[in-house]
């Protein structure tokens, strides 16, 4: 087990992790500027999960939040969520769930479930359920309707996470497919990124269409909630 994990941590992986963290932060900031209804701050983490396996993905996630904490201290307590995002992304990739666009939706969904579950105890224990995120508006609403804190936070997570994580998984998939095969082959798990059927341009186009649809859906949901 330990030897197998060690194999995923080649020099390429060690050099990739800082770049992936920078990608998380860069894209995360752009999304904030554009006021999109998603976070997209773990694309790099998922990307590492795909080409270098679950443990490299998990490490990227945990470090990413810790370092992001330097500018935005509020993100610090959430590192376990990022850890599990990377881990589950890597597990999905190893199981072949990053090989064509509809499997990627499934991966995104699984990552979303994980994120919702892991973030719940942190939110409840540290913040009494109300965090600094905009989605707490939904939690507050559910709390007012008489739901318990735990179920209110969890339901909010299940409602909000899939849009973000499916988009994230799709974009990570698009980036990996856009890289030259020669480069992908240098990473520990190039087989995780091999497209199963059809050529990869079609896959990229479909994935981008899915991204647009999901984000548009996010807009609609947000506007409905904002009333």
């Amino acid at each position, binding site marked *: 087990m330990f030897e197998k994990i060690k194999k995923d941590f080649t020099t390429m992986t060690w050099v990739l992790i*800082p770049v992936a963290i920078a990608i998380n932060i860069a894209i995360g900031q752009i999304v904030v500027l554009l006021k999109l209804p998603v976070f997209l701050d773990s694309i790099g983490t998922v990307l590492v999960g795909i080409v270098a396996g679950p443990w490299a993905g998990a490490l990227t996630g945990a470090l990413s939040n810790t370092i992001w904490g330097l500018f935005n201290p509020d993100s610090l307590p959430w590192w376990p969520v990022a850890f599990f995002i990377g881990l589950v992304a890597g597990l999905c990739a190893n199981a072949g769930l990053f090989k064509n666009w509809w499997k990627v939706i499934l991966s995104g969904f699984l990552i979303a479930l994980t994120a919702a579950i892991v973030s719940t105890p942190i939110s409840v224990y540290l913040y009494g359920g109300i965090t600094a995120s905009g989605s707490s508006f939904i939690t507050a609403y559910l709390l007012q309707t008489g739901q318990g804190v735990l179920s209110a936070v969890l339901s909010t997570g299940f409602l909000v996470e899939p849009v973000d994580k499916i988009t994230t998984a799709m974009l990570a998939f698009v980036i990996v497919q856009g890289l030259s*095969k*020669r480069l992908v*082959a*240098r990473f520990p798990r190039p087989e995780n990124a091999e497209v199963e059927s059809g050529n990869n341009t079609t896959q990229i186009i479909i994935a981008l269409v899915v991204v647009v649809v999901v984000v548009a859906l996010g807009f609609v949901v947000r506007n409905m909630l904002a009333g």
Partner: protein
Amino acid sequence: MAFINLNNVTYKYPLTKTPALQNINLQVNEGEFVAIVGPNGAGKSTLCYTLAGFVPHFFKGEISGTVEVAGIDSSKSTLDKWVLNVGLAFQNPFNQISGAKYTVFEEIAFGLENTGVPRDEMKPRVEEAMKLTDISNLADRSPYSLSGGQQQRVALTSILVMRPKLLVLDEPTSQMDPIGTREVFGVIRKMAEGGMTVVMVEHKMEWIANFADRVVALKDGQVLMEGKPNEVLTSELLVENGFGVSRYTSTAREAKKQGLWKKEKLPVTLDEAVEGFKK
């Protein structure tokens, strides 16, 4: 026996159809300074990676023939051991900054820390190497704050400090001004005279002719010709194959056609040109 021994080496990167190196035979003696010239895509960088052990250990792919440095067969060694004998510095200075260090001094010590050099020995070695390449004044600067030429000096120093037996350099002066280039060539020459073997890819013909012992011309992954610098760099074969030549050579060649250059040998350097054109 030669210090570097490439025997019939043919290499293909993974997922490619044509070999990047084809039947390369090359022998280099200890302490020799060999320059490699050739157009882009000739296989110069691949040859550097082969000598430095990255082909095939890092890049994978198919290799045939034998690569031997200091009597060790590359296929029987591993990359982490290989780099103790062979140092590599390449063109893009920015990508050679480790990123793990805050000052130039720490950056240069990085290789020594990795290879377990004791602390007492480390400081004097770093100081000595920085003096050699004339960057002692940059010791406390951040490597990222330097100009491209200064970063290239840091990259070269970071390798020199590890005292490799073979120094492989892939266009290490591309971003330096003429004065810097001359100085760095001087340093490399000095290393070679001290017994370090040097293989260097370079476009600057005038400096090669001034400093190298031998020139190897590569084209399409094959050795086109090799020999004394003046002999190779003034050859018609280079012009026919789209190699760059020094302005002194091309001008003298034209002058020769018009009867204005009387000597048999064409010049590569300024001094040779002055000598030949003097009435």
